[in-house]
């Protein structure tokens, strides 16, 4: 059996709690897709819900709002990992409900 639990924990801990150019609260908000002001809120929601719809203009708008490229990089990474985490956790809970065991 493959086991990504520890590696996933380390990944999430690094992006949310480690050093970064974006603040921890911004990274957490991007991960949760919640509580970000525009235009960042729209960009993060697109990354989470339909990333193929992200445009040059969406990235540019984030830059024009005052973020440097490293901050945009971190926020987009947090948004992608946050949504994939919610999908993964939901599926594991469904599997647990279907099998009724740890």
């Amino acid at each position, binding site marked *: 059996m493959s086991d990504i639990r520890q590696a996933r924990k380390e990944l999430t801990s690094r992006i949310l709690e480690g050093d970064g150019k974006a603040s921890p609260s911004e990274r957490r908000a991007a991960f949760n897709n919640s509580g970000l002001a525009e235009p960042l809120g729209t960009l993060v929601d697109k990354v989470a819900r339909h990333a193929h719809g992200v445009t040059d203009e969406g990235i540019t708008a984030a830059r024009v709002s005052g973020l440097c490229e490293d901050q945009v990089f971190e926020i987009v*990474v947090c948004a*992608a990992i946050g949504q994939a985490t919610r999908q993964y956790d939901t599926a594991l809970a469904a599997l647990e409900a279907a*099998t009724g065991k740890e």
Partner: protein
Amino acid sequence: MRLRILESGHGFGTKALFALIRTVSRQPVLDVVKLAKYRADFYGGPMQGVTHEAMRGPSTWSVGDRELMAAFVAKTNQCEFCTKAHAAVAQRAYRDGKTVSALLSDLETAAIAEPLRATLLMLGKLTREHAVNAEDMRVVLAAGASRQQIEDALAVCFSFNVISRLADAFGFFVPGPEAFEAGAKYLLARGYR
């Protein structure tokens, strides 16, 4: 790519590595590699740990099956880069002539084992609708997939629900088939570390 730092913001050592890759493979460095190597302590390093375990860790799914899952998740996300990249790996991993592009385009009638088909359909729903329920899981179990196989498949799905989002958000360049073939050879020989 939409961020200049991901294209050219790497340190001297990494740029030297990219030059070596270009020379040896005679192909451009794929944008997924540029992303993984940019400030690798933040994303690339920790993510490679997750992806290598999901794709090459112990599992009763074959490497080809897991690469097919990766391509299918990417296709569901409409991510052209990851679909082509991992279809190429799956095609190379399956040495029995399976046509991966046909599998991806018509999963319902494809000539694959039922546990794999049911698992792929569940991953597709999870990726498309962001959720599945217990009944969805019972269908996969009834098709013959074990609980552990489902967990292993969900690990693959997690990785490619991250990577395909980043590929599209950052605007990865989609190269020709030769570059993906070179990438497939590397991933089969070395994995994701």
